[in-house]
């Protein structure tokens, strides 16, 4: 026990880490693991082959880790951080997806976000949309 702590969610909003949110966090956790592990292997063993793709993999992994932790913590501050991370995630997957489609030569090796996450059944494209919808669904009601 860490002593007295404020109620995590404040007033009438629903918790991000409850109900269906636990499934969402589980998916984020799996992607955090997948993207981070992939990036680590790529950066450690073959950085010269495709530095841009590998650094983007690492960035994707970092964003998934932040989203997983902040959604699971569910404090007002972590909720704001989750929103920022998920917006970055959406921008990232749309941007990398489009660029990898238009300039395949810049992405000789795949990242989680290449071709809108085709290697992962397009889940990387759907996930930030679900994440934003979930944050909206659980938003605290203004008093």
């Amino acid at each position: 026990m860490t002593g007295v702590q404020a109620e995590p969610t404040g007033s009438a909003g629903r918790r991000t880490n409850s109900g269906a949110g636990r499934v969402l966090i589980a998916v984020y956790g799996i992607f955090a693991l997948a993207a981070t592990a992939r990036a680590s292997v790529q950066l450690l063993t073959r950085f010269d082959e495709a530095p841009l793709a590998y650094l983007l993999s690492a960035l994707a992994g970092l964003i998934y880790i932040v989203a997983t932790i902040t959604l699971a913590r569910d404090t007002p501050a972590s909720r704001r951080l989750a929103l920022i991370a998920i917006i970055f995630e959406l921008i990232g997957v749309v941007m990398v997806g489009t660029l990898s489609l238009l300039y395949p030569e810049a992405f000789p090796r795949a990242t989680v976000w290449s071709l809108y996450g085709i290697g992962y059944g397009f889940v990387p494209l759907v996930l930030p949309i679900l994440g934003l919808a979930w944050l909206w669904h659980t938003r605290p009601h203004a008093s």
Partner: protein
Amino acid sequence: MIDALAYSVIAVAGVAVIWGIVTAITNKPPGKAQLLYAAGVEVVTVVQSIIAIAKIIGGFRPAELATTIGYLIGIVILIPIAWLWANVERNRFSGIVLSLAALAVLAMTLRLLMLWIPAG
């Protein structure tokens, strides 16, 4: 990798995926049998990773060595984490969480089968 073992992992994980979906649809938290079954899937998965790593130590070199080792380690942590996460709040969504972990184990085993080709 031992093909027969890998296909066994795929089969038992597939059952776990379906089981989690069924309890979610019937709006029940995972029961004791389901949780024990998930532990069983984990045991088979761990055995698979141990055998594969033993083969690598014994001299087998898959073409993508680092990736293969990453998969062999990553695959064994999914179900324990999902198990804990599913037990914090027990409801229909706990079953889906277990299903997701089993699905990831299944997909990673398929990928391992593809990765298990000798270098050279």
